[in-house]
C-alpha cells in the first residue's frame, strides 16, 4: 500500500531522488494492481489479513451458510418422506370408512349369510391393502417401521398381523439446534401395539455397590458436587465429582474422614448409613458445600449432629436397567458387616436370597489360641440365631474367616462372605488384616421376597399358550429377551419411570394376555393381565359383566348338594367376586366348602373343592335371567352350566375362561375382528368392530393431521431459511466482496494520479544544471 515518506530537510541527493521516485511508483503501481485484482476477482480481500476483522466475520458467515445449505438438504429430503407418508395414508381413512359402511350394512337380520361372506371377503381384501400400505417403502425406507427403517413393519400371520417395527422416531436438523421428527411410526398411525399390561408393581431394585449414580432417583441422577462431613471439630470435604457408582461414593467418604476419625458407610438396600467411630465421640453432621445439593440427593443431609450416628440415608430409588439383576428385585437380602479396626479386614456377609429369614442372626468370633490359621471352624445355632467362628486372635486373617464361612456346608447355604471393598487397604493389607476377636455383626435388612424364577409365565396370544421359562435369566434384559423372543409376538420393555416392566402385544387382531404358569412370576413382576384388582367393567373388551341385581346371578352347586347363590351386584373387581364366593356364610364349612381363586395356570377364576360327598355334581349354574357367570368366564358362552369339573387327587376343579383379553387397538384389529365377526355371523362382534373402526379412523386422521402440520411447519422453515440465507449471503458479500462502484472510481482516481506523478517525475528528474553549462 502507498505510504507517505517524509522529505528530509537538509539536502537531496541523486540516489535519494531515485529511491523516492522508485518507492512512489512502486506503491502507486501496487495500489493499482490491488484495485485491479479486486475488480477482476470480485473479492475485496485476497488474504484474510487484508482486513482481519471483516475476514473473521466472513468466516463465521461462511460457516453458517454451509450449515444452512445442509439444513436445506435436510428439509427437502425429509419433505419428500413426509409427503410420501401423507400420500400413502390418503387412501387409508377412505378405506376404513368404506369398511364401516360394509359392516353397518351387515348388521341385523336383513343381511344374508352370503352377503356377509361377500362382505368378509371385501374386508379381507381391505386388510391386505392396508398391510401393503403399512409396508410401503420410499427411497429404501419402510415408512411406517419407526426407527427400524429396514424392517418390513407389518406381516400377516395367519389370522393376525404382527408389527415388526417400533415406536422410535427419526429426526433431522431443521436449523443449527432445532430437531424435527421425520417419520410417523406404524403404531401411532395404525395402532399396532397394545396398551401395556400395566407393570403396576414397583419392582424396587436394590441399591448395589456398582449402581451408577446416574440411575438413582428413577434415573434423574444426583448432583456430583461435594459434601462436608464433620464430627463437630474437624470437617472433611469429600468431592464426589469423579464418582461413578454408589460404591465410589462410599469409598470416597471412608477414605476422607474428618481428621483423626473413622467414618463407616454401609450400603443398605435403599440408601447409605453413615456413622463415626464410637470411641471418638462427637456429633456427626453432613452438610452441603456451597450451592451443591449432593448430600441431600444422596439422602444423607444431616445438618445438626447430635451423636456419632448412624445417619440413616433416605431411599435413593435406583431405576431398573437392562443390567439390573433379577435377584435384586422385589426384596432385599439380609446383610451385615463385621468391622475390625485396621485396614483390609472388614468382612461383609450377604444372604443368598431376598427376605427376612436371616435378620437377627448374630455373628461373632471366639478366640481359641490353639487354632492354626486356615483351620477356623464355624458353629451355627439356628435356634439361638448365632454363628460363632472359632479363631486364633492375632493370627487369623480376614481371608481365613471368609474362607471358613464360605466353606462351611451349613452357612454357605445361607449367605456369602467377602472382604469389604471399601475398607481402606483392600486388597488385603498384610499388616493389619487380622480380625479383632471382639468384632461382631448382626444380620439385618432382609425383606421382601425372591422372584419366582422357576415357574415362569404364560403368554396367550392368538389362541396359543406360550410358556416363558425365565429360570436361566440373570438380568432384567434376559427376562425381556425371553418374552420378546417368544412366538407370542409380545413386546416387553422397562417402563418409562424405570420402576417396573410392561408387556404389550405386537400382534393385531387377536387376544393377548399374560398369566401365571403355576407360580407367582407374572403377579410378582406386575404383568399379569387378570388379577384380583381387575375391574369387572373392563372385562370382555370393556363390555363388562351385567348382574341382574337383587337376585342371584349364578349358583355354585356344591357336592354336598348345597347351592351357593352369588349375587354380583356389589362386586366391582375380580377380587370382590372371589371374596363373595369364599366369604359366603354358607360356604364356611371346611369339609364341603368351595374355594375361589385366580387360576394357577393362565388366567381366569378357578373354583376348587376337596369335598368327598357325592350328592350333587360340582357345577356352576346360570340364573336364567343373568349372563354374569358367562361373562365371568365360569360358564361357556351360550351354555347354562359350567363344564364338568376336573378331578385330580381328591380335588375337583372348575376352571374359568380368561375374560380379560387385551388386544391391539387399531385399524388391523378392527378389520380382522370385523372379518371374523362377519364370517361367524356375530352381530355383537360386528358392532364392536364398527366401534374399533371408528377409533382407527380417528387415529389415522389424527396422524394425517399431525403429518400435515409438520409439513406446513417445514414449509415455513424453508421460507424462513431462504430469507435467512439471503440475509447471510448479503452480509457475507458486504464483508468480502468488491464494491464495484467504489473500486472503479478508485481505479480511475489512482490512474489519473499515477499518470500525473509519472509526468512530474520525468520532468523533475530530467532537470539538471548540466543542461545549462
Amino acid at each position, binding site marked *: 500500500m502507498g505510504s*507517505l*515518506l*517524509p522529505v528530509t530537510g537538509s539536502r537531496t541527493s541523486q540516489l*535519494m531522488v531515485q*529511491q*523516492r521516485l522508485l518507492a512512489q511508483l512502486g506503491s502507486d503501481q501496487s495500489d493499482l494492481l490491488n484495485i485491479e485484482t479486486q475488480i477482476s476477482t470480485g*473479492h475485496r480481500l485476497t488474504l*484474510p489479513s487484508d482486513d482481519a476483522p471483516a475476514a473473521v466475520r466472513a468466516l463465521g458467515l461462511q460457516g453458517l451458510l454451509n450449515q444452512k445449505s445442509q439444513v436445506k438438504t435436510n428439509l427437502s429430503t425429509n419433505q419428500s418422506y413426509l409427503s410420501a407418508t401423507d400420500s400413502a395414508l390418503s387412501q387409508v381413512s377412505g378405506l376404513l370408512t368404506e369398511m364401516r359402511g360394509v359392516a353397518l350394512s351387515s348388521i341385523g337380520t336383513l343381511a344374508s349369510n352370503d352377503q356377509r361372506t361377500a362382505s368378509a371377503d371385501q374386508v379381507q381384501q381391505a386388510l391386505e391393502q392396508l398391510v401393503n400400505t403399512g409396508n410401503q417403502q420410499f427411497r429404501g425406507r419402510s415408512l411406517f417401521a419407526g426407527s427400524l427403517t429396514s424392517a418390513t413393519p407389518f406381516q400377516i400371520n395367519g389370522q393376525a398381523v404382527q408389527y415388526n417395527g417400533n415406536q422410535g422416531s427419526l429426526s433431522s436438523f431443521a436449523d443449527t439446534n432445532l430437531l424435527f421428527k421425520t417419520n410417523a411410526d406404524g403404531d401411532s398411525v395404525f395402532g399396532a401395539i397394545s396398551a401395556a399390561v400395566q407393570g403396576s408393581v414397583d419392582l424396587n431394585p436394590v441399591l448395589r455397590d456398582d449402581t451408577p449414580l446416574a440411575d438413582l432417583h428413577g434415573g434423574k441422577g444426583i448432583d456430583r458436587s461435594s459434601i462436608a462431613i464433620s464430627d463437630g471439630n474437624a470437617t472433611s470435604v469429600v468431592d464426589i465429582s469423579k464418582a*461413578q457408582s454408589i460404591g465410589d461414593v462410599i469409598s470416597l467418604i471412608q*477414605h476422607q474422614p474428618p481428621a483423626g476419625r473413622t467414618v463407616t458407610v454401609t450400603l443398605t438396600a435403599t440408601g447409605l448409613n453413615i456413622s463415626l467411630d464410637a470411641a471418638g465421640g462427637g456429633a456427626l453432621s453432613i452438610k452441603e458445600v456451597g450451592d451443591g445439593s449432593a448430600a441431600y440427593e444422596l439422602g444423607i443431609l444431616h445438618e445438626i449432629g447430635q451423636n456419632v450416628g448412624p445417619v440413616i440415608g433416605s431411599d435413593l430409588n435406583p431405576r431398573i436397567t437392562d443390567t439390573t439383576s433379577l435377584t435384586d428385585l422385589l426384596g432385599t437380602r439380609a446383610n451385615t458387616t463385621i468391622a475390625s479396626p485396621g485396614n483390609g479386614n472388614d468382612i461383609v456377609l450377604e444372604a443368598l436370597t431376598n427376605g427376612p429369614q436371616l435378620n437377627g442372626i448374630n455373628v461373632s468370633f471366639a478366640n481359641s489360641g490353639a487354632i492354626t490359621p486356615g483351620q477356623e471352624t464355624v458353629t451355627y445355632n439356628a435356634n439361638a440365631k448365632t454363628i460363632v467362628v472359632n479363631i486364633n486372635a492375632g493370627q487369623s486373617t480376614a481371608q481365613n474367616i471368609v474362607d471358613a464361612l464360605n466353606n462351611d456346608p451349613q452357612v454357605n447355604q445361607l449367605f456369602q462372605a467377602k472382604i469389604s471393598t471399601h475398607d481402606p487397604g483392600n486388597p488385603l493389607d498384610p499388616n493389619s488384616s487380622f480380625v479383632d476377636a471382639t468384632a461382631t455383626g448382626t444380620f439385618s435388612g432382609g425383606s421382601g421376597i425372591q422372584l419366582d424364577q422357576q415357574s415362569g409365565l404364560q403368554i396367550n396370544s392368538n389362541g396359543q399358550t406360550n410358556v416363558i421359562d425365565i429360570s436361566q435369566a440373570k438380568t432384567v434384559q434376559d427376562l425381556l429377551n425371553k418374552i420378546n423372543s417368544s412366538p407370542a409376538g409380545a413386546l416387553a420393555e422397562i417402563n418409562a419411570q424405570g420402576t417396573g416392566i410392561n408387556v404389550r402385544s405386537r400382534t393385531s387382531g387377536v387376544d393377548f394376555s399374560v398369566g401365571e404358569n403355576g407360580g407367582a412370576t407374572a403377579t410378582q413382576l406386575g404383568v399379569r393381565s387378570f388379577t384380583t384388582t381387575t375391574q369387572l367393567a373392563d372385562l370382555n373388551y370393556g363390555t363388562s359383566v351385567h348382574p341382574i341385581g337383587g337376585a342371584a346371578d349364578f349358583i355354585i352347586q356344591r357336592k354336598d348338594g348345597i347351592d351357593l347363590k352369588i349375587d354380583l351386584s356389589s362386586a366391582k373387581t375380580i377380587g370382590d367376586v372371589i371374596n363373595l364366593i369364599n366369604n359366603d356364610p354358607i360356604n364356611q364349612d371346611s369339609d364341603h366348602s368351595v374355594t375361589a381363586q385366580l387360576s394357577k395356570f393362565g388366567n381366569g377364576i378357578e373354583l376348587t373343592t376337596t369335598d368327598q360327598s357325592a350328592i350333587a355334581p360340582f357345577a356352576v349354574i346360570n340364573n336364567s335371567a343373568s349372563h354374569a357367570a358367562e361373562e365371568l368366564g365360569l360358564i361357556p358362552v351360550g351354555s347354562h352350566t359350567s363344564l364338568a369339573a376336573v378331578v385330580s387327587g381328591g380335588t375337583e376343579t372348575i376352571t374359568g375362561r380368561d375374560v380379560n383379553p387385551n388386544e391391539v387397538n387399531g385399524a388391523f384389529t378392527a378389520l380382522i375382528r370385523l372379518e371374523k365377526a362377519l364370517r361367524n355371523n356375530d352381530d355383537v362382534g360386528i358392532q364392536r368392530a364398527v366401534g374399533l373402526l371408528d377409533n382407527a379412523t380417528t387415529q389415522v386422521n389424527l396422524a394425517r393431521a399431525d403429518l400435515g402440520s409438520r409439513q406446513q411447519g417445514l414449509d415455513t422453515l424453508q421460507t424462513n431459511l431462504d430469507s435467512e440465507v439471503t440475509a447471510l449471503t448479503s452480509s457475507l458479500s458486504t464483508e468480502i466482496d468488491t464494491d464495484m462502484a467504489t473500486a472503479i472510481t478508485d481505479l480511475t482516481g489512482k490512474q489519473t494520479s499515477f499518470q500525473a506523478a509519472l509526468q512530474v517525475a520525468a520532468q523533475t528528474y530530467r532537470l539538471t544544471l548540466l543542461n545549462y553549462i
Partner: protein
Amino acid sequence: MSLSTTLQLASNSLNAAQIGLQVVGQNIANANTPGYVREDVNYVPAPTQRIGTLTMGMGVQVNGIVQNIDSLLEQRLRGAVSDQASADTQAQAYQQLESFTSELNNTGLAKSLSDFTASMSDVLNQPEDVSVRNLAMLKGQTLSSDINQLTNRIDEVRTGLSSQISSAVNDINRLSRQIAGLNVKIAVAEAGDHIKNVAVGLRDQRGVALKDLAKLVDINVQEQPDGGVAIYTGGGFLVYADQARTIELSQTIAGDSLRFTDTGSLFNVSSGQVTGLLNARDQIVGGFQSQLDDFARTLAFEFNKLHSSGQGLNGYQTVTSQSNVLDANAPLDAAGLSYPIVNGSFKMQLYNKTTKLTQTTNITVDLNGLDHDTTLTDVTAQLNAISGVSASIDVNGHLTIKSTAADQDLAFANDSSGFLASMGINTFFTGTNARTLGVNQEIVKDPAKIAVSRGGVGADTDNGVDLAGFLNRPLDSQNNNTIMQLHDRIIGETTQGSSEAQSVASGLQVFQTSLQSQSLAVSGVNIDEEAVKMLTFQSSFQASAKVIATIKELMDVLIQL
C-alpha cells in the same frame, strides 16, 4: 620570494583543482552506486614561507579525500534495517499460513468440517442407506487428509525456514570475516593519517557489508581509533579488529539454537532476519502447527467419545483396539494411552442377528484412585466372563474382542469412562495429531458401522443426532467451546497475527526509508552540487593557469633583458 616560487604555488593550485575535479568525477560516476558515500577533498592552505619580515602563503594543499558520513545516523539506519528484516520475514510467514488455510475461498478446513458433519446429517436423513454412510466415511477421510495435507505443507514451510536460517548463519560468518579483513586494510591505509575516513573505497565496501550484516542480525558497531570497527551482537563481540568469531546452528533435544562456535555461548539476537526466521519457524508456523495438532486431537477424541457409545447397522465379529497400552497391568489412566480415561463404565452388547435380541453387560472402569484401579487385564477378565465373548491382549498391548458365535455381533454403548475412545474401539477417527489423523479402518471397510444408533444395533438414530450436531456441541474438555469455535480461533489468531505483522512491517518500512533518506541526504551525491563544484574547480584551474601564463610572460621579459 621569486617567480618560480609563485610558479610552484600556481602549480599546487592546479594540482588541487585537478584533484578536486577528479573527486567530482568520482562522485558523479558513483552518483547511482548504492552504498557509495560522497567524497570531499579536504583542502588546507599550504605551509607559509617567511622571507624577511613577510610571511607568505604557499598556495593550497590537498590534505586528503574524506567521506561525508554521519556515523550515528548509519547506526540508527542499521538498527532499522534489522527490525524491518525481522518484521518482513514474520509477515511473510503469516501470509504463507494464510494462503494455506484458504478459508476465504470457502475451500479450507471449515468447509471440510461442515461437509463432514453435513454428511452425518445425511445419514440421519437416510439411516437405512449404506451408500450415504459410505459418503460420510469418505467425507471423514477428506477431512482427515485435508488436515494431514495442511500439516505437511506447514512442515515444508518449516523446513524452508530452517534452511534459510542456516544459510543466514553462513552469510553472517562470511560478512563478519569480510569486515574483519577490511578492518585490517583500513587500518593499514589510514595508518599515520591524522584525519579519518581517508580509506574511502574500503570504507564504502565495509559500509555495504555492515548494512548486509545488519539486515541479518541487529548489530552494535563501534569504530576504533585505528579505523577498524568492533561489532557487538548477540551477547558478545562478533568482530574485533581482525578477529571474526563464527556462529553455528547447534542441535539440542529442545530444538536448534544459534551459538558462538568458540565458547558455545548462546548467540542471542533480538532483531534482524535471523530473529524473524526463528520466530516465524518456532512461534508462528510452529505455534500454528501445535494448535492444529491440538485441534485434530480434540476433534478425534470428542467425536470418538460420541461415536464409541453408539451402534451401527452392523456389529463387530472381531474388533481390535487401534491404540495400545504400554503396561496391561497398570491402572488404565497410567497405562500409556494418549487420551484420558476416567472413572466410569461402558456397556458391552451382544447382538443376535437372528433373533435381533441384545444382551448387555456392564463393564466397570474403576479409576477412583482409592481401591484397586482397573487395568486392561481387568477389563479383559470382565469381558471374558461374558459367555459368547472372548477378549485378549496381544504382546503390543492391543485389546482384541471376539464374538465366539457367528450369529452374534459385538456392539458397545454408554461409555462414561472414555475407555473405548481412548483404546480406539468402535471409533470413527484414528490418530492423535494432525499428521496421524485418519478414519478407522473398521469404518472404511464397512461404513454401515458408523454408529448412528444408541438403542442397539440398527435400532434408532439418536446417536446420529449428536454426531450431526457435533460442530455446535459444547465440549466439556474445551471450556464449553465448540469444535467450530476452536477452528475459528486458530484461523482468527493467524489472521489477526498476520494483519498485525504486516502493519508492523510497513511501519518499520516507512521508518527505515525515512532514515535512509536522511542518510542519503548526508552521504548521497547531488549532480548539481557536483556540477557547481566542477565549475568552481574549473575556474580555479583556469585562474591558476592564468597565473602561470603571467609568470611565464614575466619570465620571458626577464629573459629577454
